[in-house]
């Protein structure tokens, strides 16, 4: 089994929860005891061999890990480089999100919590949370923007069938940002027995670090699998989409200190970076504080958070995790902006070339392949974060 808790030295979070200039815990006092309790215990709990054993067993027997590293031959030919897909779409529930929710439900149990609250955008994190709550018999409340409830209806039905209460977030843009606000408010109102399972590498410290560590199984497996297939643990490029950035953080984690591996983050440009309908955070944002951490954030000159737009509900978020803000600022990460149109095309291309329908989020990562200066000798891994079943109604609008 992979060593999941490994030090990523220069991109390691500081004691106060910062990655360079980004991170921290900007939370109202009402949340301080909860977040502090988590901060003081998460590393110790995660390092406990009994916790690791439970986590590994569930990843293997319940989630279905390790997920395959698949050599996409026809796509490779089309792109002109060796392209591997890290098949997170084959995880139970259809996306990488469950790696984190398994870890966090075990954490919540060890903290003695009785109830789980979560936010969701595409509904994948909500489904993954509802799933582990059913598995462990904990009450589950999921906040979801009312616009997202419409465009990701199958996931709303799945959550309900799993026994979760889905609460529409009707404020603001009625998408992921507002669902996160509502989940935080719920946590403020229920501070003692409730654990908040954040769905990405966002939120106050220690969430970004904890979620990145749970997701780091993606790159831990990739190293081993690539060694088997290519005789080397490191690809030339590791490519992932970034909403909040959890699949990317997991895919990058064990490569952060390997400068030969180019880390590529695909952000959602929506209708285009300068159209006013975009979620390309690093292109449009400035440093600021949202949902408990200092990060890069889309905002007005007055510091009001602006409403993002993307065809993909999972990328429709005005910020990114503080680790990614640091990767951007330090130049360690390469950030690309992918339009709706381009992502949809890349989704159709993968479907036709490889028989895999990707989530719209993951399709952004696939589209990024066409923006990189790849050469035939390059070995590229794309984190295929989820499957596209939930997006069929969107895709089919483009069928002609």
């Amino acid at each position, binding site marked *: 089994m992979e060593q999941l808790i490994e030090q990523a030295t220069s991109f390691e979070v500081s004691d106060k929860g910062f990655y360079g200039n980004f991170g921290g815990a900007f*939370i109202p006092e*009402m949340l*301080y*005891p909860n977040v502090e309790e988590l901060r003081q215990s998460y590393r110790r709990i995660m390092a406990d061999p009994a916790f690791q054993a439970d986590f590994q067993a569930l990843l293997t027997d319940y989630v279905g890990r390790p997920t395959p590293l698949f050599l996409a031959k026809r796509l490779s030919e089309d792109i002109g480089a060796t392209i591997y897909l890290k098949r997170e779409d084959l995880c139970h529930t259809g996306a990488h999100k469950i790696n984190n929710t398994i870890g966090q439900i075990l954490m919540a149990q060890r903290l003695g919590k009785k109830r789980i609250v979560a936010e969701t955008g595409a509904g994948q994190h909500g489904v993954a949370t509802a799933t582990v709550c059913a598995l462990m018999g904990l009450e589950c409340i999921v906040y979801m923007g009312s616009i997202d409830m419409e465009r990701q209806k199958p996931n709303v039905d799945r959550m309900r069938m799993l026994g979760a209460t889905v609460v529409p977030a009707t404020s603001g843009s009625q998408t992921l*940002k507002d669902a996160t606000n509502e989940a935080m408010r719920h946590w*403020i109102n229920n501070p003692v027995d409730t654990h908040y399972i954040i769905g990405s590498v966002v939120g106050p410290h220690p969430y970004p670090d904890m979620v990145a560590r749970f997701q780091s199984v993606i790159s831990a497996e990739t190293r081993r699998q690539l060694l088997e297939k290519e005789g080397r643990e490191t690809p030339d490029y590791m490519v992932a989409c970034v909403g909040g950035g959890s699949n990317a953080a997991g895919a990058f984690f064990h490569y952060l200190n390997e400068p030969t591996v180019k880390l590529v983050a695909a952000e959602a440009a929506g209708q285009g970076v300068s159209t006013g309908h975009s979620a390309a955070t690093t292109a449009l944002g400035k440093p600021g504080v949202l949902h408990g951490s200092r990060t890069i954030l889309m905002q007005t000159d007055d*510091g*009001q958070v602006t409403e993002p737009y993307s065809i993909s509900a999972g990328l429709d978020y005005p910020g990114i995790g503080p680790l990614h803000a640091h990767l951007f600022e330090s130049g360690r990460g390469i950030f690309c902006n992918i339009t709706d149109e381009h992502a949809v095309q890349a989704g159709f291309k993968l479907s036709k070339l490889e028989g895999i329908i990707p989530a719209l989020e993951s399709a952004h990562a696939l589209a990024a392949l066409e923006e990189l200066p790849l050469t035939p000798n390059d070995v590229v891994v794309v984190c295929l974060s989820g499957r596209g079943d939930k997006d069929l109604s969107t895709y089919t609008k483009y069928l002609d």
Partner: protein
Amino acid sequence: MTHEPLTQNRINDLFAQKSERLLNVYFTAGFPNLDDTCTVLRGLQQAGVDLVEIGMPYSDPVADGETIQQSNMRALDNGMTLKLLFDQLAGCRDGQSGEPVTVPILLMGYVNPVLQFGVEAFCQKCREVGVDGVILPDLPLDLYLSEYAATFRQYGILNVFLITPQTAESRIRLIDSETEGFIYMVSSASITGSVKGISDSMRAYFERIQAMALKNPRLIGFGINNHDTFETACQYANGAIVGSAFIRHLEQEGPSAESIRAFVQTIRS
């Protein structure tokens, strides 16, 4: 470390003169209408309110319930900005358009707009227009103390911190020793506008804090919405803070001096 109390601050002056039954009322700048800020401020002063807390509207007020959220959205839709608020306040302090406002003023809001404005520029403006203190619930205490406290002090702006029933005693002591003005006691773990009545466990918490003999005065907020809850809070603290109830009143009855006087009367007597 302990500091000498700041001279020349209306909040400290107020507590030096009066230590019981203080009423602090919150309203959102630019609500219900963009230009109501001074009208409401004057109305509250005329009605005999002791301190006023002005909300700087923000797009994502995570510690606030629906009433204050909606007032924030309305104010932003009306075009409220921090810069405009400072301009409005300068006008009401110097009495350009009516009776000068002398009541102590705190700005309450979230940290991001302040960071975008620039912390030093913000403090300077506060000083210039006569803001006496701020409440920024999502500014972490440790970061405030290590990075910003010196700037706030330099401009004589008090920074008021919150405590809740879950705040550890050692942390309350830290807040008490490192900050001045008053301590904002959140009555129960909750967002604004969602507390119904004062329960036994809340009383027990009020008593526990009362027994700590803190150096700072205390005001109780969240769930103070009528005469009864105000009186109860005043038994355990130097006064209380009314927020959502006043926003609802403004929404229904408007910001006229009579309307505000009537509201304050129902709380006080």
